[in-house]
């Protein structure tokens, strides 16, 4: 058992025994060592269901919002998850006093979908562990180091907030890692349009990207408001384009770059390339990054007299 697992369990036990929270939302082992599953622990004697490993990919802020209004909850949160929680507080979806954040410093989580392309057989995987910012796996013949670039959730490679900016308990220290440089889109605008047209033509509109996103909490998504006619159910180039661009805009200044949308996409669409680009535009224009300060006004819900804009 790694020390993070131990500390998470200790903290969960304390919180449940004292009655401070009614449930601890965390990760439990999944079907293989490369997968974790969200668990809800309600009794102190069950805290051993919780664990920590580089397989803890899900953004649990999703479940925190679903628990809103049912008393105080605790949640295990990586850097990005904590930023999602801050966003939810900013947008008044949850109250700061209703959530206890067990922050875990994170050195990146594995995307199981990338294992096979990296030459790793998930079926024979016996263990997966993080060590000094590196990764090692055991497929039956001893532990071997893994290349982070090849198996991590792509968003993790760009992450510059591995330590939760918001937490009540903090486990672990900042990993000795440097974020990778941003991916570049083609410079030529026509090539860019072509790039997106090709990517979006793969979309089957399963909406997994939306379902998994903690910021996509609208009771009625524009995609479901068919009589209004913003976008039809039809899977077609322009329709898919409309879905993705609108969703990107709805997440402007709200997406924290957790990369869950991209990880769950069955079509392998590089949604992060779109989202990161939007986030960097927001930063460049307004000096704002999503989920860094739970007390900040959401960036598009406010304005400044001297914002950039057309000439008078």
């Amino acid at each position: 058992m790694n020390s993070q697992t131990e500390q998470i369990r200790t903290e969960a036990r304390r919180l449940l025994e004292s009655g401070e929270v009614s449930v601890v939302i965390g990760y439990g082992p999944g079907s293989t060592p490369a997968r974790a599953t969200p668990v809800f622990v309600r009794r102190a004697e069950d805290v051993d269901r919780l664990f920590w490993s580089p397989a803890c990919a899900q953004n649990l802020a999703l479940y925190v919002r679903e628990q809103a209004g049912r008393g105080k909850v605790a949640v295990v949160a990586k850097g990005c998850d904590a930023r999602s929680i801050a966003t939810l507080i900013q947008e008044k979806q949850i109250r700061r006093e209703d959530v206890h954040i067990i922050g875990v410093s994170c050195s990146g989580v594995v995307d199981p979908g990338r294992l096979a392309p990296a030459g790793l057989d998930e079926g024979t995987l016996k263990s997966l562990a993080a060590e000094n910012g590196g990764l090692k796996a055991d497929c039956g013949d001893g532990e071997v180091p893994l290349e982070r670039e090849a198996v991590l959730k792509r968003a993790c490679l760009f992450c510059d907030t591995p330590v939760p900016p918001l937490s009540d308990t903090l486990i672990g220290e900042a990993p000795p890692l440097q974020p990778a440089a941003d991916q570049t889109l083609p410079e030529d605008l026509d090539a860019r349009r072509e790039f997106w047209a090709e990517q979006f033509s793969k979309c089957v509109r399963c909406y997994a990207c939306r379902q998994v996103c903690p910021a996509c909490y609208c009771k009625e998504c524009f995609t479901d408001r068919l009589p209004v006619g913003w976008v039809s159910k039809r899977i077609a180039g322009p329709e898919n384009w409309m879905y993705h661009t609108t969703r990107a805009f709805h997440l402007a200044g709200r997406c924290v770059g957790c990369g869950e949308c991209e990880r769950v996409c069955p079509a392998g669409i590089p949604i992060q390339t779109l989202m990161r680009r939007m986030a960097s535009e927001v930063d460049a224009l307004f000096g704002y990054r999503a989920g860094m300060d739970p007390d900040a006004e959401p960036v598009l819900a406010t304005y400044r007299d001297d914002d950039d804009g057309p000439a008078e």
Partner: protein
Amino acid sequence: MAETPEVLEGTETMNGQAAEGTWEPKILGILCNWCSYAGADLAGSARLQHPPNVRIVRVPCSGRVDPQFVLKGFMRGFDGVLVSGCHPGDCHYAKGNYYARRRLTLLTRFLETMGIPRERFQFQWVSASEGARWAESVREMTERIRKLGPFQGVGRPVPLLIPVVARQSEAQAVGVEAR
């Protein structure tokens, strides 16, 4: 759910109409009721000559302009989109245009991320007394788009699984009409 099956389909773009020699820029104009629409009206009543390429949709305030309006315009194949509202400080609702400014400035940059040049999207302030300014901006934008040529559309065709009947009704449902 309300029974309006027509709006489920019919999102074909207008690029088919860009036949050689007959092409004229089609520009979607989204104008705030209190300033720019009145300004455009003034241009008309003052008989100021300007190109007929802008199809105008009137909204109560530039703050009402959901970036989706603009995206939808491009999705439907407009060659350019023009959003026009009251000057900062002149908003009928005090601050709608300040919110619009944030969103639409961001949208300009986002369109470039999607590969749509910023010359195809114009966001401007025109007051009710600025009929000449309106006429000039329409002239200027129409010429600019004419030079850029027809917009090539946003999506690539995906093989259809179901037969689709081309319909106009979806555009009507959101007030975005172009013929």
